[in-house]
């Protein structure tokens, strides 16, 4: 957006504007689709953990401890796309 628009929303704590932006990003410009995409990613992640599989907990804790917040935020966005891709319901036109 213009960054000004988003920065003003942060300053005003206008959470509706900010989450709308996230939904638009995930939903290809469709806010409702974006909401569903967010849910889909979380559902896919949940499904993977139902059987309490062995996971690399040390890696997870180490990553959070060592990496800067910006990288973790970027990873968070990237993981969204990873999980929606696993759902086999890919709504985007191209590929990540």
């Amino acid at each position, binding site marked *: 957006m213009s960054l000004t628009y988003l920065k003003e929303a942060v300053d005003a704590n206008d959470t509706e504007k900010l989450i709308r932006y996230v939904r638009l990003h995930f939903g290809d410009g469709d806010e409702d689709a974006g909401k569903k995409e967010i849910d889909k990613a979380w559902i896919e992640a949940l499904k993977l953990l139902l059987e309490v599989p062995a996971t690399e907990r040390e890696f997870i804790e180490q990553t959070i401890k060592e990496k800067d917040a910006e990288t973790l935020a970027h990873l968070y966005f990237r993981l969204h796309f990873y999980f929606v891709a696993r759902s086999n319901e890919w709504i985007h036109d191209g*590929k*990540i």
Partner: protein
Amino acid sequence: MEKSNEEKQLRPGLWATVNERYPGSMITKTDFIPLAKLIKPLAESRLSFVSTSGVQLRGTLPFDTAHPIGDYTFRAVPSNSKTSDLEIHQLKYPTAGAERDLNVIYPIERMQELAAEKIIGELAPNFYSFIGYNMDAERLERTLAETIADAVEAEKPDVVLLAPA
């Protein structure tokens, strides 16, 4: 100017729609840039190509389509690349046609042929790609646009063709 329906763009109101969803992201200019002249015939000219379709060499860092504010980097694509050397990383336009024939979005083979046939003099050593989805128009103009223009200019093209997605 009246145009028949068939001559109108397929997705009407694109600028307004995108600008409504992402206020301030769409550029409006109020002035025109004076035209530069082509100093040689096309058959003697060097052509460069700049694309925002997200086409890049396989094995280079994929364009970042996850980032919510966009990707402000660019890639050089050697103009003698084969289409099998190239791949697309973007989420914002239908790639079904390009997956079958990359030339519909990135006509590298056609440009190579035109240069081989001497209809165009030659191709610049590299073409340049960046991503059209970026939400910080000011950052784009301030940094990336000048950096890409530097790279394009350094290869001394006589003419530049640009294509979005």
